[in-house]
């Protein structure tokens, strides 16, 4: 229910998500990120086709944000209104770099 498309260009990793990032799919994203994030200095999360994010998904984003704070930067692009509302309500908009 979650399609993850990764694109590594030098030290920039772009991860495009499609579908639902919830309790069942969050571990999948976490594993994918863990395997590729080591040498990355810029992590771009493309949420254009993401329909929904749950607290488990937010946790994975938070983990990634914490790692990227140490080795570079992370930003989230193409955030839909619905997802943005979730970020706003949960206070994540204060922590995450949303463009």
């Amino acid at each position, binding site marked *: 229910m979650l399609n993850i498309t990764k694109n590594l260009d030098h030290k920039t990793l772009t991860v495009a998500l499609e579908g639902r990032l919830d309790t069942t799919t969050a571990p999948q994203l976490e594993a994918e990120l863990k395997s590729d994030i080591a040498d990355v200095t810029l992590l771009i999360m493309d949420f254009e086709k993401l329909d929904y994010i749950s607290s488990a998904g937010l*946790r994975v984003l*938070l*983990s990634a944000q914490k790692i990227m704070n140490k080795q570079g930067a992370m930003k989230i692009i193409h955030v839909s209104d619905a997802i943005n509302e979730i970020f*706003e*309500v949960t206070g*994540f908009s204060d922590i995450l770099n949303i463009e």
Partner: protein
Amino acid sequence: MSVKLNALTLVIILALSAVLIIIAYDVNSRQVDTYYKEMTAHDARTVASFLDGDWIDGFVDTIQSEEYQKLRAKAVEAKDEEMIRQYLIQNGWYEGFETVRDILGQYRDRLGVAYVYTVTLEGDDSFTIIDPDENLFYIGTFVPLPPEFHDLKKGQAIEPTVSVTDYGWLCSAYDIIQTSKGGYAALVGVDIDMTEVMNEREAFLKRMIISSGGLLVISILASFLLMHKVVIDPLKMLSDATRGFTEHDHGFKKEDIISLPITANDEIGDLYQVIRTMQGKIVEYLDNLTSVTAEKERIGAELSIATQIQADMLPRIFPPFPSRHDFDIYATMTPAKEVGGDFYDFFLIDDDHLGLVMADVSGKGVPAALFMVIAKTLIKNRTMMGTGPAEVLRHVNEQLCEGNEAELFVTVWLAIVELSTGKGLAANAGHEHPVIRHADGQFELVVYRHSPAVAVMEGMRFKEHSFELKPGDSLFVYTDGVTESTNADNELFGTDRLLEALNRNPDASPAELLTQVKAAIDSFVSEAPQFDDITMMCVQYNGAEVKT
């Protein structure tokens, strides 16, 4: 099985030996017959070459004459052989007759044959000329021939025959006695007695049948015994032992693996080893399975205890404060299968202040449950110290961020209500929008910007805001298990359905409202599985006037 096999083998062996015996007998007989025929024909040729054809030609003419035939008839009638001898003497044939007779007799004795004689063919009869074994009456007698000789012409070669006659088994051959001009004079017949040969042949057949029959019986018995000893007995032993391995009720143990005195290095030996290996594997596998199952059961039991402990941590006795009538409260948590991280809490900080907590730890399982226990304890303890919600969350955040390797966080809605006035302070750390209903109105979402969840990051500050409850107002808080309940079509229950469920009967008591919402969720979700804990809490403020 073994009986069928033996019977089939027996029939096949019997048929084979019968065929073999017939072939051997036939080949042998033909060879012997051919040998005798050749020998007889050779003897006939030898004798014929020593006879004077011209003389015999003349003698035949004489004894075929009417005169001689009449005389012979008289002599036979008178039983007087002498009459014939006198006739032959008088006509000058007797000396020649004796010579031929002696030659024939000598050859008979020297060659060791049964009979040597001279004959000629006369129509369908054989006409006896000279036969050393007969008296003179036989000279010139007609003897009817068997039908196979009827078409023979004089001078034609006659194939030797083997036949049974009044004189026993004879091999007969004829050769032509030629005149000096190469014409046909008569035939020399040689008979070799084959009675002994035939007896021998019969005996040979008997011997063959008896000996091969005996051999057959012995070999069948031997193979039967051998098959029993080498195949059937070990197989039976194996199947009995294998049955013994499965037919008991104390499970499978190493001691049950079959152990038999089978040492043969053949297919049976292989089978025995394979069965032993297989049983070893079964025992090993079952041992493994038993320990794995036991381990699983142990973990399952511990998890269910953990779930129980977690549930027991939440206040579950309603009404919790029976002496107070200024507010009415009800809360429920319906856990999902796995132990989760939802919790609610309510407690009186002092006689006038009510603490309300609704929280959800991210993630599931034992880590989330442990995190929930710590979070719940920290929040309550800090709130009981009398500090405001924002300060409580700041403090709890610092505590939870310490050593938070699992990077869990908890969304918290924390409110403190002054019961005498209905005024309250609330902080929302990333939690769901609360729902409020003012007296006689509808339940509505209270949407505002929240602080980040607790334990996300160190050094965070949380916002708090004030609100006021009027008598008759209700406050409903919940976790995402409510709004994210999913039906089979992957649709979410959502806040709209939640508000609709609450507003169906807004005047109901908190307990009834929760039951109402739960029923709405259940009918929406139907058969789809519940993934998350469903936690709800509702407080109705009755006002300070109805305090006692």
